[in-house]
């Protein structure tokens, strides 16, 4: 391997490592301890970014996600509990912002439609199975059917 290509390879490795480093911290925020950082990350992944429809505010680069991350940090620093933080965001952005929306009149369809569909599927399978069993007669039953039909006037 020539020295030039070796330098190139080294530069490439540094570039990769920098990319990985650049991707990990969010908004350059320092936490007092690892547990707080973990709690922060866990909370962020619970909230849907209102602008991007299907991305959590943990990973989104949208300005509104940056604002919501800042809001979560501010509430955490002020000593708010997880439920308080959830309620805070929900009061402003509605159920949409929660990836685990509460059960209520507006979300009944969301929670129960899959169950109802599974129920329909099971009903169809059971019916088909019953019909198939009814359709297959034993040899003795077949003879009896033939006899009965012969006897019929």
């Amino acid at each position: 391997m020539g020295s030039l290509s070796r330098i190139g390879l080294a530069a490439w490795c540094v570039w990769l490592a920098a990319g990985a480093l650049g991707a990990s911290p969010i908004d350059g925020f320092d936490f007092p301890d690892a547990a707080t950082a973990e709690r922060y990350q866990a909370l962020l992944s619970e909230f849907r970014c209102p602008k991007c429809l299907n991305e959590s505010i943990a990973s989104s680069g949208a300005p509104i996600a940056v604002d919501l991350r800042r809001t979560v940090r501010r509430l955490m620093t002020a000593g708010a509990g997880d439920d308080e933080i959830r309620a805070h965001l929900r009061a402003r952005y509605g159920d949409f912002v929660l990836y685990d929306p509460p059960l209520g009149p507006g979300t009944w369809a969301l929670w129960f439609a899959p169950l109802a569909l599974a129920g329909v599927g099971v009903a169809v399978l059971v019916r088909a199975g019953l019909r198939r069993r009814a359709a297959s007669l034993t040899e003795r039953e077949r003879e009896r059917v033939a006899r009965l039909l012969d006897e019929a006037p």
Partner: protein
Amino acid sequence: MHRLLPLAAFVVLAGILYLGFTLRDPTLLPSALVGQPFPEFDLPTLGDPPGRATRADVAGDVRLVNVWATWCPTCLAEHGELMRIRRATGLSIVGVNYKDDPAEARAWLARHGDPYDFNVVDLAGDLGVDLGVYGAPETFLVDAGGTIRYKRVGEVNGRVWREEIAPVLAEIGTPGDG
């Protein structure tokens, strides 16, 4: 009956999918703030030199609160309608200049006209978060008690004024014809 089952299934499925077309824009979220008090804030105004504005400056009269920015093309598109509303009805309009450059915002208003009684400067977007804003423009109708009565995400145009804002205004008890 069994022969009709696939047809029935198709009709039901087609009906559900058709309903999907009649849904409003999926990017429009129902506002959690309608019926809630306008949030507290204490922020600079867009004046030169800037003053301060708080919730008390917004509550106390029926107003439109319009979240806008110079970087937002739709804000320019709706600007003419805001100018018309202000001129034709005298309805008070307060601006929230959202994540913008105040100097550019002042120049923008000088160029396109200023329908606002005053503008609140929300550089960081914190008032925006308290208002459940996730883009611009967004427009709120606030009653004299400081309660949010209506919210519009996106452009305010003549149709939105006639079909959505004017009826709520009439309900609140201010003549909304214009």
